[in-house]
């Protein structure tokens, strides 16, 4: 179904259920859907599994969601950062589960979810701690690990511009996880800096076609 333009960020994240898996775009602050995360904090869903590259910085955004005790599990590639004290404290206190996934495998598992691939043999991490307990197989003389898709109930992503169909373009390295996460969740919510008329985005340059987008909300750019 074609995308819906939402009145505000609260409208955009309405209905997220307790226990949901939430994919959150961004790499550092680039592409981080700040307004949607803030709205999710207000919305109140708890017992969440959050899939994102990092596990929150400082005291806002994902860190604030974590601090409220709303996150049961984090699936990410790089939780530990100079300013990830909220996550660090919860983790050391045993109050949040952590699944660490190599960054490229995280992206590929999200892609597999979106692309209907049941599982894939991946050379990354073979023979390391992160492959423990996973099925492995040697293919063409190289050890591979069997990796499964990561499906989201909801994806929260940030893009630069949307048209009336929900077609999206991104800007520079803020593109990062947005396009793959948009394919991998049941409900895809996008915050954009600007909306344009359908037809105003050159069809050759669309990065995320509107088929993947459920809700769009225009928010002021805090950058």
């Amino acid at each position, binding site marked *: 179904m074609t995308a819906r333009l939402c009145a505000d960020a609260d409208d955009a994240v309405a209905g997220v259920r307790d226990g949901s898996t939430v994919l959150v775009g961004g790499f550092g602050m680039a592409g981080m859907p700040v307004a949607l995360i803030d709205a999710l904090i207000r919305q109140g869903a708890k017992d969440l599994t959050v899939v994102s590259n990092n596990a929150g910085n400082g005291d806002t955004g994902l860190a604030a969601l974590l601090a409220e005790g709303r996150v049961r599990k984090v699936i990410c590639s790089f939780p530990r950062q100079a300013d990830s004290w909220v996550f660090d404290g919860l983790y050391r206190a045993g109050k949040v589960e952590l699944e660490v996934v190599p960054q490229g495998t995280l992206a590929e598992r999200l*892609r597999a979810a979106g692309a209907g*691939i049941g599982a894939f043999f991946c050379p990354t991490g073979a023979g390391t701690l992160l492959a423990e307990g996973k099925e492995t197989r040697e293919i063409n003389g190289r050890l591979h690990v069997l990796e499964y898709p990561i499906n989201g109930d909801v994806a929260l992503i940030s893009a630069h511009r949307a048209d009336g169909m929900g077609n999206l373009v991104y800007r520079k390295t803020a593109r990062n996880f947005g396009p793959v996460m948009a*394919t991998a969740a049941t409900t895809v919510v996008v915050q954009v800096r600007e909306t344009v008329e359908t037809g105003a985005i050159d*069809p050759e340059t*669309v990065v995320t076609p*509107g088929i993947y987008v459920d809700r769009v909300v225009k928010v002021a750019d805090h950058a």
Partner: protein
Amino acid sequence: MSHTSSRAPGQGPLSKHDIAALIARDIPHGSYVNLGIGQPTLVADHLSPTAGVVLHTENGMLNMGPAAHGDEIDPDLTNAGKVPVTELPGAAYFHHADSFAMMRGGHLDICVLGAFQVSARGDLANWHTGAPDAIPAVGGAMDLAIGAKQVFVMMDLFARDGTPKLVSECSYPLTGLACVNRVYTDLAVFDITEHGVSVRQTFGIEVHDLADRLGLPLLTGSPR
């Protein structure tokens, strides 16, 4: 919804265009739809521009427009049947792996396909006659069969030799297992349900006659 007979018995079977119009009416507003190649592409002619239906073509495009004519013809812009087409506002292009990821990942709402046979379980046979000298050629048929949220088949209910194409078991090689949700034919529309084949509508034939000719038990009443 209960079984309805849209036309009085005896009014005769639907034409291909009638079937296409019926399918077009059943596609919800705003759906993303793939019409495969051949006969199902007739459905496009019956979709009103206000229906908000977005057509996908597996060679890498969303929001495909009608066939191109005259100066509109662009060799770089064709549908899956290699027929020149046009582009509607809001279109998007993508490569083949992304296009089939979109399909295999279950993002299309509806796909409409032709068929040699459909089984009562929803198995589809539409790519290979099984003839010993046939050159196998599958194209995107298997991807389409398993990819969309709902798979509609559009076909005549009986082959030219009078044998049913809705069967208990397909005798032709399969395209996909238990993948068909609904079958639109010249004589009736069927839902494939977990309880069996359910008749939604008939055209000029009574259900008991239909069951006799098909040699299949048919459910009527509320489909799932």
